[in-house]
């Protein structure tokens, strides 16, 4: 990574130092925010507190309400109920041009009739910043995203990645209190996405700017953010750090939406115990229902090809099952083993370095994993 020009961040620090440095209260706060279109509830009961300087992801499938929520924060949509506060100021009814937020769109929305430099300068023009200062800030912003040489080009002459960086510079140059990104990387190819992810995260941390980031890509959310809000059908499924979301999913939806997961349906026969066709499983969490399923991440499962005469339950803190190998999938840095345990499909993942013993489909094996990696959820059936 090239060293980042930190002139802008000094200015923004100076701007923000007026506020208390020990800021316990959340910088961005949504209270019971909801949006209804007629009888359709796009967003319900949305509560969120974002500390200053954090990067928060709104993660979920299409139609879950994440973009609607972002647009409510930006002021492009008025909430049906609830309040939005920025640094203790109620902004719920402020129009977008009075909210001091930087917005980056999925389609970049660069002004086609202006050059890159004029695009970036737009926010400064509107604030009547004097010419020389404006030129300085525009140049600094373009340097920040490494596009200084393209200042006089038109948007249509730029590649997707370049346009996106211009959009970012344009949003950042006005030193907004909050940065909002609506799936900014969706239109880029995989490799560019990786690069931009790092760049955006680096800039965000450099400037310590509170950021909300909408995405449907869980890898993005997991790798970039301080915390993740998983959304589904208009409501929040779980809020947590990437680790919490991944290792301690609060619901089946989160478990299966974020990362790959094995689901074992069965009956709850005792507290923390599920029975099914291929045996019994102990779980780390418990529920009240009788129809349940257990979930465990594929990379937590170890595969033993030697046939131990297996009892249904190993003592100690591990679960184990007999299963038959169906097929092997090679995914670059990782190998997936697809098993069948009495009708239940299970996938075990190992990194290509680990997996040195690959068998033919049809081989019997013993799968085992820690009880602490197993979560139980109620099953609706």
């Amino acid at each position: 990574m090239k060293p980042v020009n930190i002139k802008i961040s000094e200015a923004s620090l100076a701007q923000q130092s007026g506020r208390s440095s020990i800021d316990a209260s959340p910088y961005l706060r949504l209270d019971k925010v909801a949006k209804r279109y007629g009888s359709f509830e796009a967003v319900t009961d949305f509560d969120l507190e974002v500390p200053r300087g954090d990067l928060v992801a709104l993660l979920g499938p299409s139609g879950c309400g994440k973009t609607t929520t972002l647009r409510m924060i930006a002021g492009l949509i008025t909430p049906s109920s609830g309040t939005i506060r920025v640094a203790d100021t109620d902004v719920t009814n402020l129009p977008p041009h009075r909210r001091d937020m930087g917005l980056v769109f999925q389609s970049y929305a660069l002004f086609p009739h202006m050059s890159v430099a004029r695009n970036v300068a737009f926010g400064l023009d509107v604030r009547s910043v004097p010419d020389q200062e404006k030129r300085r800030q525009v140049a600094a912003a373009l340097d920040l995203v490494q596009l200084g040489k393209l200042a006089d080009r038109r948007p249509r002459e730029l590649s997707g990645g370049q346009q996106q960086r211009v959009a970012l510079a344009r949003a950042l140059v006005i030193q907004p209190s909050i940065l909002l990104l609506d799936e900014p990387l969706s239109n880029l190819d995989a490799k560019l996405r990786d690069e931009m992810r790092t760049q955006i995260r680096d800039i965000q941390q450099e400037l310590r700017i509170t950021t909300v980031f909408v995405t449907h890509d869980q890898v993005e959310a997991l790798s970039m953010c301080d915390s993740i809000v998983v959304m589904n059908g208009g409501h929040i499924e779980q809020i947590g750090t990437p680790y919490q979301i991944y290792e301690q999913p609060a619901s089946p939806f989160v478990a299966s939406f974020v990362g790959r997961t094995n689901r074992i349906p069965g009956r709850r026969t005792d507290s923390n115990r599920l029975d099914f066709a291929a045996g019994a499983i102990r779980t780390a969490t418990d529920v009240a229902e009788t129809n349940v399923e257990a979930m465990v991440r594929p990379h937590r499962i170890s595969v033993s090809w030697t046939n131990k005469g297996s009892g249904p339950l190993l003592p100690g803190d591990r679960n184990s099952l007999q299963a038959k190998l169906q097929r092997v999938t090679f995914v670059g840095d990782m190998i997936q083993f697809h098993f069948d345990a009495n009708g239940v499909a299970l996938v075990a993942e190992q990194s290509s370095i680990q997996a040195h013993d690959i068998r033919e489909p049809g081989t019997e094996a013993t799968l085992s994993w820690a009880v602490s990696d197993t979560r139980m959820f109620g099953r609706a059936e």
Partner: protein
Amino acid sequence: MEGHQLSWPLRALVFVLMLFLLAPALLVFPISFSGDRLLSFPPSSWSFRWYQSLWQNELIISSFLTSLSLALVVTLLSLAIAIPAVYAIIRLKTPGSEFLYNLFTAPLLLPTIVLGLAILIIFATIGLLGTFHGIVLAHLVVTLPYALRVLAVALGNVNLACEEAAASLGAGPLTVVRRVTLPMMMPGIIAATALCFLVSFDELVITLFLTGPKLTTLPVELFRYVETSADPMVACVSVLLFFFTLAIIMIIDRAMGLTQTFVR
């Protein structure tokens, strides 16, 4: 398309028919150089006399200037009226505006003879007959539908996200319109300008009902001239008008070509 009977009989037939289609319009070019005193084709002699007579024809010149100023005023007013209207219909989605949009493109469907008569009767009652602003109003009724349609498409093509981006950067609603919406509509605005200008400049039937002794337009005078006399002067005016129209269309095309390199 392969294997089609672009056979010679068909080709010959189409050639003759195209000649039929184009003959009268093409004819005015040679006739304008006729040296005869009366309209005839082919002319028995050639000369510039009829072009020369144009400069002395005060009526033609003054009616041309009237048409010109009329068209300019009508065009400017059309834009000033239609742009806010499409904004209300397409961006603000004011209730009832879609109905109004359909209603106000309706004048295009009516025959001008009926519209002309209807306007004549009303104008006579309110004293707008034979007045410049009366004719402006009448022309607006027929130019606005064109302006409305072209501008509606242009505004519809403006990416809403750009306007939202501008707002998020601190631009108030009027600033967004001024600095983002209108510039991005520019090709449509230019096309609407050309259309309104030509429609007003060439308008005949409605204007025929509304002219007075002191106020007349070029199409009306040409009509009256053909009605009463038969000489080649009309051909000269036609040729000049043809190049005038062509020039306007070319200017528009250049202007739009230029904007299209800047706006996508």
